[in-house]
């Protein structure tokens, strides 16, 4: 299996290189957090807002850009197209589940983003006194684990929605709708701690925050001990749920696949 991963990775990396300009431009569109950051800083006017000091907004939104880009998956359009136009066929002929190809392609493009993203994490603390992250080895490990799980969860949610293209022609619209909920309940636009308590508590049971806010809050050192363990448990549960859902959708969807094309 290791060989296969490596080969798929290589190809994904080659593809990412071919599209590096596009990837860069896409990254520029993900700068909404910078806007949100300046809004909060001016609202706060040097005072704390809830549990957020002004410097925390800097850490949160700059770290948010990093987490978002690392977790981001953009395969729903590819998948929907592959199902609708029959481009899935060549992948189905190979003795490997196409999901690995999609995963490898997405992961292989990640390193390309790092040269832009890592400086952001360094720059914030340098420019804004008090901003920064909790970088003890244990916390970094916790961050990397929750980040990887966040990616996995986001990937499977998107894959499941993409697979709905076997049944309906509006899978990508459904994704758009999901994404609007995500903007709110993931903490991407506004830190979940600043919502009314009811919303904050609700969001803890929905899958959204486990694809974004959890690793970010870990990175900032806002979570620890039993709370962290509890959170990771919920995250893992959501991953398992969507993996199971994926397996069901995949096996049923293939029965309906019509392999359009000459």
């Amino acid at each position, binding site marked *: 299996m290791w060989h296969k991963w490596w080969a798929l990775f290589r190809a994904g990396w080659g593809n990412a290189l071919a*599209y590096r300009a596009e990837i860069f431009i896409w990254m520029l569109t993900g700068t909404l957090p910078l806007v949100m950051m300046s809004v909060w800083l001016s609202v706060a006017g040097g005072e704390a807002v809830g549990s957020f000091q002004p410097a925390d907004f800097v850490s949160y939104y700059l770290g948010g850009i990093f987490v978002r880009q690392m977790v981001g998956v953009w395969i729903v359009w590819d998948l929907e197209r592959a199902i609708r136009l029959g481009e899935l066929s060549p992948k*189905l*002929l190979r*003795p490997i589940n196409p999901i690995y190809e999609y995963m490898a392609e997405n992961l292989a493009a990640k390193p390309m983003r790092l040269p832009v993203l890592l400086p952001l994490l360094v720059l914030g603390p340098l420019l804004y006194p008090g901003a920064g992250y909790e970088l003890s080895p244990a916390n970094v490990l916790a961050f990397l684990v929750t980040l990887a799980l966040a990616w996995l969860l986001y990937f499977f949610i998107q894959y499941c929605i993409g697979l709905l293209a076997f049944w309906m022609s509006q899978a990508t619209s459904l994704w758009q709708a999901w994404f609007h909920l995500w903007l709110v309940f993931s903490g991407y636009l506004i830190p979940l701690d600043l919502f009314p308590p009811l919303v904050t508590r609700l969001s803890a049971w929905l899958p959204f925050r486990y694809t974004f806010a959890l690793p970010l809050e870990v990175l900032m050192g806002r979570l620890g001990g039993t709370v962290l363990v509890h959170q990771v448990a919920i995250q893992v549960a959501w991953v398992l749920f969507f993996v199971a859902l994926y397996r069901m959708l995949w096996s049923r969807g293939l*029965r309906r696949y019509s*392999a359009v094309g*000459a």
Partner: protein
Amino acid sequence: MYHIEVRHLKKYYEVHHKAPGFWGSLRSLVRRETRTVRAVDDISFTVAPGEIVGFLGPNGAGKTTTLKVLSGLLYPTAGEVRVLGFTPHERQPAFLRQITLVMGQKQQLLWDLPAIETLLINKAIYEIPDDEFRRTLDELTELLELGTLLTKQVRKLSLGERMKCELAAALLHRPKVLFLDEPTIGLDVTMQAKVRQFIAEYNARYGATVLLTSHYMADVAALAKRVIIIDHGHLVYDGDLETLVQQVAPYKVITVTLRQSVSPSVLKPFGHVLAANGVKVSIQVPRGTTSRVAARLLQEFAVDDLTIEEPPLEEIIQHVFTGGIREASPDVA
């Protein structure tokens, strides 16, 4: 043991169609109107190991659909299909490792990378050992005359070059069963001949089973001894290509070049005169009498040249579709 077994296979497509415009889409929300397309409607056949079978039929007959079912892309609506003893739609890795489906279109090659990258991925995915990979690659390079094509970006290749690379990618794992759907479509005549020759050589070298569809009768005539003809999802003929030709077209065409032109009426007794352009005359004669008629022509006229030919295969197939098959193949139920 057969390599391919198809029993009472049916594949129906449900096509949703919605009336045009806003009200149409609103109505289709409430009640989906579907139509059933019977692409393959109860066909049965078997193919033995190492056989090359031509799969013929007019557009929309169900050829591609059948190949897609056989290669596991589509679930059959009814019936039973076995390929190498596997049930294709289960798509077991051991099955997929032994078959290939080639369609004459943009297929598996990664568009933005050189074809060799796709080959390397396939090497890993099909778990091909290094030395075998080398050997197969050398053989394919030789047979397909790939030269340096593999290192060029795929999007920059011509259609013919790309097709050759697709074939290389599709055959790298040395499949035992090949499903080839219009493998020569869009290629120029020399390239067609090369691909055809390649298929014959691959079959000879590896004893692979080949099921082939093609628009070009030359492909079929050159490669397949046996043909299966389907129309509207039904099987209309399964048997020897030569027998089909003899039964459907129980005549041959004699073309003579005379030293001086004669009136067509003089030639009437020899057979049905198809064309008479000055000194060149084509006559259609019953199969059994061909040599006798040719001898008489040579006796009675001053002849420069004489050829005896089968009628064109296109014509024969056309004849089959327009109903000439009933008396032609008593062995088809």
